[in-house]
């Protein structure tokens, strides 16, 4: 009997190694493919080079880093406040019937393929911007709006969970002290749930940085520094998505190298989200 117990433990341990091994494999293969090009071009030239023209051996991804940052920032600026409002709505204001529509709706929102969002953006958001704000329509702004919608489920569900996790006494105590409902939310509940909400924001940002297909469809993908939010940009993900099909040799390696940069950014974001969550745990 003892044998069996130990055996099952080993079996589960082997299963449990799957996540580590897969992460190691991914890291290894992406780096092995991309690093030679970074070594050849030079890390500084690769990260801060302004020109991307693989057919002329020019591999600079700075405009794409700017693109990723600006689109993600825009998405966060729109999506985070709206998302937090929705989570407060769900935990504090929503009549049960509305909440019962809202939650599955958000779940569905999370499940819709990103290509559908991209297509919808192309049909409605892009022409709106072109007709009323100017420029070609395919732009940072269009991307920010669509990605904001796409990160809503992440922001809403994680913020809601952290608001719901607060001990009831917080709210009851604050109300007993004569605070209004809003004062309670604003000065007691939100600060108490802060770390969870920050984690929600970081994960939302991670999703926005990582999005590819929708971004390809609505960002315009131009490889130049944008001068306004109405300019088209290319992000790190779309650079890979749009050129992977045709790339070979150095060009393909450069796309894997772009993947390394993306990978590094996501790892830093994730580690900070985990750090924040864990600090709350203590």
């Amino acid at each position, binding site marked *: 009997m003892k044998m069996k117990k130990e055996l099952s433990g080993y079996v589960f341990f082997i299963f449990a190694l799957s996540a580590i091994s897969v992460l190691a494999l991914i890291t290894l293969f992406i780096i092995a493919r991309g690093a030679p090009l970074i070594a050849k071009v030079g890390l500084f030239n690769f990260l801060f080079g302004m020109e991307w023209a693989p057919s002329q051996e020019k591999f600079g991804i700075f405009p794409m880093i700017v693109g990723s940052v600006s689109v993600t920032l825009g998405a966060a600026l729109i999506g985070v406040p709206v998302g937090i409002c929705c989570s407060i709505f769900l935990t504090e204001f929503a009549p049960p019937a509305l909440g019962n529509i809202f939650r599955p709706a958000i779940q569905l929102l999370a499940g819709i393929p990103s290509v559908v969002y991209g297509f919808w953006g192309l049909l409605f958001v892009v022409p709106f911007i072109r007709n009323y704000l100017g420029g*070609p329509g395919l732009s940072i702004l269009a991307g920010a709006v669509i990605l904001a919608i796409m990160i809503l489920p992440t922001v809403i569900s994680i913020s809601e969970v952290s608001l719901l996790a607060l001990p009831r006494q917080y709210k009851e105590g604050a109300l007993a002290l004569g605070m209004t409902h809003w004062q309670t939310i604003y000065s007691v509940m939100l600060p108490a749930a802060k770390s969870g909400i920050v984690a929600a924001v970081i994960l939302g940002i991670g999703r926005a940085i990582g999005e590819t297909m929708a971004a390809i469809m609505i960002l315009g993908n131009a490889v130049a520094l944008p001068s306004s939010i109405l300019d088209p940009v290319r992000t790190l993900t779309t650079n890979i998505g749009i050129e992977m099909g045709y790339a070979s040799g150095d060009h393909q390696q450069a796309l894997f190298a772009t993947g390394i940069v993306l990978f590094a950014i996501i790892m830093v974001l994730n580690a900070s989200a985990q750090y924040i969550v864990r600090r709350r745990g203590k």
Partner: protein
Amino acid sequence: MIIAGSTSVQPYAELLEEAFAVYAENTLLYQCTIDIQGGGSAAGLTAAETNVADIGMSSRELRETEKEQLPYIFEIAKDGLAIIVHPSNPVANLTTNQLRQIYTQETKNWSELGGNDAAIHVITREDGSGTRSAFEELVMGKTEGIHPKAIVQNSNGAVRLLVSDDPNAIGFISLGLIEAHEGQKEVKSLKLEGIDAIPENVKNGTYQLSRPFIFAAKTEPAGVSKDFIDFIFSPAGKAILAQEGLIV
């Protein structure tokens, strides 16, 4: 059997495969499935070199190194590149020089070309695309590149969709895709140096913008591969391609 490569060639290869399956069943008396894969010219040629695919599809001329690896080359058709704008755009004709200056952004406003006073929204394909390299070769010449601010889309269809929707846009797509299919809006194709972008003019050489659609293989096609390629070059195969606006 797997055929992989250019997304420009893929739709036509799918049409051919469909007809070939019927022909094989009725005339050659065997059943077969041929998988047609996208992925892009370079990926398809690499796949053929490494035997991942039996045949690679390319929408540009093969480079010398590729020709060494893939000596069996079949040009199944020629495809014209059409310069397209919104139907409401009054400009009807461009010279190659004007076209080049649009893509280098020396010309920034349609009024400089006799059109409305509006900024030109330049749309191009991604670096590495066969369609783009054909355009660069034929229009831009060796020295000048397409301006980095140009909008980049990764398919003929995406370029067409944008141009059909934006009164100030210009783009280039496969000649066979100008016509609006159900659900699509119209686009207008421009004359180049006064010559209409129609298959006849590509065929007789007066319309300059064209590139080949190529099937390339590592070993001499045999069996199903050979039958399929024979079918493509038969009158029935050619008729299918011609009907889609390609030049055979």
